[in-house]
């Protein structure tokens, strides 16, 4: 394992430390327990927004703490959800007196830890609403699974709900818009090569030369199937087709197209995927109104990408365009 790290067990703390130093104008890093809060603390009268999950997906979530997005982020160990005793103080730090929304990616670990934390928060008199993100169409949503996973669509939920909260919308309204994004966003990813979890020291999975995993999760969990490597255009179609079919995209629909890198793939390749995805959407008569291309929800240095489509309406577009000032997403301010 070759990594720019010191002690494999100190990776998260040292990295968050560096993040706090580099973005001291935006965030405050709290230790014991570890969480990242917006500089200056909770905004009174504003609905608080908290997200979190295992580390290794940077810039998710700490990179999205700031004006117009999250009030606090809770980083767990690499690929392991954080614990209730981290989530509780993060929620306190985000509470402006009118309630907090927890944005939780749908993994058993995250769900259980946020659930426990929410109980503790309620006991303290902080009203918590939990919005589960489950955009990954690679996993069947049935009684026989833990349900769909939350992947890159999470960034869109955080951005849009964050904008609504920043503009002073009520707890009900912020929760509702977050749920609306969840209802209208779908994703699917693939991997060309695995990443390596520092404390494990070996790649998360093995792929033969010329073999890829379609439907990969952001923790290197296996996906739908292993197939041979194909040209980017064909691979893009394997990702986009289930996404738009599940979402039921029709001619005339306005969408946001988001091509996300898994961390180890060059930006130039993501644009090749974007190009084909945009063509395929155009072929279906959909109108790409907004775009996002880059490494926004990663899986360490995994090579691969995911394609996310969000069906837009005027409300979602307005919140998407609203100013945001975070380490990883910034415009209008």
């Amino acid at each position: 394992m070759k990594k720019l790290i010191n002690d494999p067990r100190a990776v998260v703390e040292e990295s968050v430390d560096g993040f706090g130093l580099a973005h001291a104008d935006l965030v405050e890093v709290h230790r014991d327990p570890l969480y990242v809060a917006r500089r200056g603390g909770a905004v009174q009268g504003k609905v608080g927004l908290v997200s979190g999950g295992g580390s290794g997906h940077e810039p998710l979530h700490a990179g999205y703490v700031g004006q117009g997005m999250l009030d606090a982020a809770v980083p767990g160990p690499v690929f392991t959800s954080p614990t209730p005793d981290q989530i509780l103080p993060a929620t306190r730090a985000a509470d402006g007196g009118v309630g907090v929304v927890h944005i939780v990616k749908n993994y058993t670990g995250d769900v259980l830890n946020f659930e426990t934390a929410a109980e503790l928060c309620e006991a303290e008199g902080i009203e918590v609403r939990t919005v589960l993100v489950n955009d990954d169409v690679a996993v069947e949503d049935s009684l026989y699974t833990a349900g769909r996973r939350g992947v890159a669509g999470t960034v869109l939920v955080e951005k849009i709900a964050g904008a609504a909260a920043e503009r002073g919308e009520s707890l009900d309204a912020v929760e509702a818009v977050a749920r609306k994004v969840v209802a209208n966003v779908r994703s699917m990813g693939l991997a060309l090569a695995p990443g390596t979890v520092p404390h494990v020291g070996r790649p998360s999975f093995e792929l033969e030369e010329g073999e890829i995993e379609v439907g990969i999760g952001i923790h290197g969990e296996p996906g739908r199937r292993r197939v041979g490597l194909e040209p980017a255009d064909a691979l893009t179609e394997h990702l986009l087709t289930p996404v738009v079919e599940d979402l039921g995209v029709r001619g005339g629909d306005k969408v946001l197209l988001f091509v996300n890198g898994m961390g180890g793939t060059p930006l130039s390749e993501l644009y090749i995927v974007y190009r084909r995805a945009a063509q395929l959407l155009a072929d279906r008569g959909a109108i790409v109104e907004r775009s996002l291309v880059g490494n926004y929800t990663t899986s360490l240095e995994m090579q691969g990408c995911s394609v996310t489509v969000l069906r837009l309406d005027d409300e979602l577009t307005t919140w998407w365009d609203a100013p945001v000032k975070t380490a990883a997403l910034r415009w209008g301010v």
Partner: protein
Amino acid sequence: MTALDAAWADRWLRECARVLAERREELIDLDRAIGDGDHGENMDRGFRAVVAKLDEARSDSIAAALKLAAMTLMSTVGGAAGPLYGTAFLRASVAAGDRDRLNGPAVEALLAAARDGIVARGKAEPGDKTMVDAWTPAVKAAAAPADGEAALEAAASAAEAGAQATKPLVARKGRASYLGSRSVGHLDPGAVSTSYILRAAVTAAMSEISAGGVA
């Protein structure tokens, strides 16, 4: 054999830490196969923290030791296993009440409370290929013996068999469920760690070594 008293509870938790550190790689490998490869690290980190807490202040009752373990696991393990084992130890602590020794029925009550806590949180049913598949036969096996140590021994053996029996199952809960039928042919890591935890309880019961001696 020693009594199942507060000193035993302390030794049990330390033995868990020792065994799970030893089995760290194995549990990582099991979790890599059908999950995300962190179960061994999570359990090792959690029980290491439990021992650190025990070293800070010796618990003077079974209930206190189990509660300390519950709170520590909850705040250090993370993932699915953290809240599940945390709830299990918390419910077990409540079931232990102010008993200073455990007999067979008490062991059964304690394990049943733990199992019920896991089910309440995780909503898994037997056969879903989770740790519930180790806890459920363990509770059942603990029902017969009057003697506490014998109940533990029966429970540990049943948990081991239960863990082995997860191999042909299709996972329906947790991360492994994403794999669908590709989860067949692998042991569930949480069921295996459960069998180690229950076996540790037996080892602690047979051990003459004082609590402070094992780290």
